[in-house]
């Protein structure tokens, strides 16, 4: 990017500066630490100069927004055209209560919905299943059948909002229910906009809501890719997630490396199933974390975009530019929040918001200050949403595209993360791909090592977490936390009994048996699932049929 002669001169001047000016200062005032590291523990130099990025070629490595390799962003105008989607993840207790929260969020300026489901729903159990005891409605809304989805989206026009659903193992069932609700509202499936997370590999790695073994799970995912490319063209069929990998303790580079390795596995599976890469790849989307190390995080998003573009173009021979664009959702880092002095979390979330925005995110969820203690209250959710709005309208960072590009540090860091992530991808390729690396526990162990190292650093005060290991105060018990009514479980059980009395059980049986046959064969299962949800077969019944045919995943446990 720079003239060779000038680079030599800069290098000479830097050495001179070190020997004279710098050393003099260091003798009198030593630096605070021997080694400075990023939030991920990577060493950071004192100063970055053009010499650190001399290998970077502007046109090839950075280019222009909306153009390959998309380092500077996926759209030509970025936030000057349209701000990111402010999408707050919410949902708890019953469909009625969550529906109220969604309407509130839309009134407050939220521009997309993001549905949190409870654990029984995410693992394919109805609310009356023995394993669901104590969990119904806790971390999200309980969905047992289409009846719940009808209430959840009551008076929310599905042709106007885009909806993201954090659902993985039973993603096809929830998508089917969404399609059915749309139909009842008179909105045809080709008009529906939204995302299902549908990323099973990271469930095995880090998040834990898996049901079926790897192979049938990958088939369900490719069935969704195929069905949507033909029938629900505006739907993002997967959100390949680094978020939970990072929450589990990975470094920023691991977050990129492991997530893209999972991405590669999905693309390979779909190609193997006979799909054309340029038909499904434009609907792939990603989901990353935002932690506190602002510049490392910005570099991470840029590195991920550039690396994915290259992978799609060079490895998979994608021709459609849309296949090469890494679009992503961001959520601020839950694990960075402290239970101590929770107000401080507002500041952390603001920094993380800046990181996501300067990194070019397409949508963002900001965590609320009280999330290390419980689910957030309406008031704290509002502050979190306002944080995004302040960054959008007051901070000025949205006025120009990719504002940190050209920073010697950010460009060097972007390259470093890209290289390190690529090293992980190569390692995983050598093992035989992400599914195999997960089965062997390789990815989990790498993440755990990083998590344990981080914990040690906090406990030895090598790493300061304000309010937790330094600047502590005596605190009173926080008041006014959100409580989920423990009666939700009972209420849902009663609703299920009623549902099973009112629906046509004979037709439910028929549809489930057709679904079973489809699962045993190699037809696309989506149409059968849609048929089953429409006659009010429950999520538990549908997943039960699939459990029977596919079996269940067994976690490889190692420390």
């Amino acid at each position, binding site marked *: 990017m720079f003239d060779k002669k000038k680079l030599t001169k800069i290098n000479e001047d830097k050495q001179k500066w070190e020997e004279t000016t710098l050393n003099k200062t260091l003798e009198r005032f030593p630096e605070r630490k021997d080694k400075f590291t990023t939030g991920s523990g990577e060493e950071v130099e004192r100063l970055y100069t053009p010499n650190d990025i001399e290998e970077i070629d502007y046109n090839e490595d950075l280019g222009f927004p909306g153009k390959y390799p998309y380092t500077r962003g996926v759209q030509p105008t970025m936030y000057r055209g349209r701000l990111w989607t402010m999408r707050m993840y919410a949902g708890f207790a019953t469909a009625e209560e969550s529906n109220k929260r969604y309407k509130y969020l839309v009134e407050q300026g939220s521009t997309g919905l993001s549905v949190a489901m409870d*654990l029984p729903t995410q693992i394919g159990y109805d609310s009356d299943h023995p394993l669901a*005891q104590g969990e119904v409605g806790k971390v999200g809304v309980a969905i047992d059948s289409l009846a719940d989805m009808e209430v959840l989206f009551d008076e929310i026009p599905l042709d106007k909002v885009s909806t993201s659903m954090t659902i993985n193992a039973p993603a096809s069932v929830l998508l089917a229910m969404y399609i059915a609700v749309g139909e009842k509202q008179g909105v045809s499936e080709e008009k529906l906009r939204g995302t299902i997370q549908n990323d099973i590999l990271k469930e095995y790695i880090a998040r834990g809501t898996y049901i079926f073994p790897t192979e049938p799970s990958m088939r369900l995912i490719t069935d969704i890719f195929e069905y949507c490319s033909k029938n629900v063209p505006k739907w993002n069929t997967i959100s390949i997630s680094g978020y939970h990998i990072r929450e589990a303790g990975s470094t920023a580079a691991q977050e990129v490396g492991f997530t893209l390795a999972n991405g590669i596995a999905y693309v390979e599976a779909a190609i193997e199933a006979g799909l054309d890469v340029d038909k499904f790849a434009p609907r792939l989307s990603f989901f990353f974390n935002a932690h506190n190390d602002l510049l490392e995080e910005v570099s991470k998003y840029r590195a991920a975009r550039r690396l994915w573009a290259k992978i799609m173009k060079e490895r998979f021979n994608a021709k459609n530019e849309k296949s090469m664009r890494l679009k992503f959702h961001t959520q601020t880092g839950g694990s960075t929040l402290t239970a101590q002095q929770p107000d401080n979390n507002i500041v952390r979330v603001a920094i993380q918001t800046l990181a996501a925005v300067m990194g070019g995110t397409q949508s963002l969820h900001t965590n609320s200050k009280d999330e290390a203690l419980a689910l957030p209250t309406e008031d704290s959710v509002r502050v979190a949403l306002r944080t995004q709005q302040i960054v959008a309208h007051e901070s000025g960072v949205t006025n120009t595209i990719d504002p940190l590009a050209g920073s010697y540090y950010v460009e060097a860091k972007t390259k470093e993360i890209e290289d390190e992530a690529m090293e992980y991808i190569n390692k995983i390729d050598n093992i035989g791909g992400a599914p195999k690396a997960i089965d062997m526990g390789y990815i989990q162990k790498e993440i755990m090592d990083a998590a344990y190292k981080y914990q040690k650093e906090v*406990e030895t005060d090598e790493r300061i977490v304000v309010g937790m*290991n330094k600047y502590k105060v005596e605190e009173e018990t926080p008041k006014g936390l959100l409580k989920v009514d423990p009666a939700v479980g009972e209420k849902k059980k009663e609703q299920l009994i009623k549902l099973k009395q009112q629906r046509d059980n004979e037709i439910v049986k028929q549809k489930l048996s057709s679904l079973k046959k489809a699962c045993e064969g190699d037809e696309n299962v989506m149409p059968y699932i849609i048929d089953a949800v429409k006659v009010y077969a429950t999520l538990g019944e549908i997943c039960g049929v699939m459990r029977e045919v596919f079996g269940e995943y067994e976690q490889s446990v190692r420390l």
Partner: protein
Amino acid sequence: MERPIRVLVAKPGLDGHDRGAKVIARALRDAGMEVIYTGLRQTPEQIVATSIQEDVDVVAMSILSGAHNHLFPSVVKLLNKEGIEDILVIGGGVIPEDDIPSLKEAGIAEIFTPGTPTTETIRYIKENVKR
């Protein structure tokens, strides 16, 4: 030589957040204890069966999903039903302060909330183990 303290680190319920459980498991192991980690999705019955089979001194459970009020006491009840009184039962996770008194009444000896150093948990176990 006295045998090392044996700990079962367990994840009851459907919650998949296991970073805390795994970090604690490693820290206890590094502190010289023998650690068995159950993996995810354990029912109270499974946890009790494993603690008997593995002859542990401590059961350390982690929940971040909010199901602690149901699942932690179930484990203690089942242990008592088996006539086991000498296992120290502790818990951790995202647990609101308001829930802690009733959990202690139900027989969970101590609750460790986010931000607790592993050293504190180790010290607590060493001082309170019942054998």
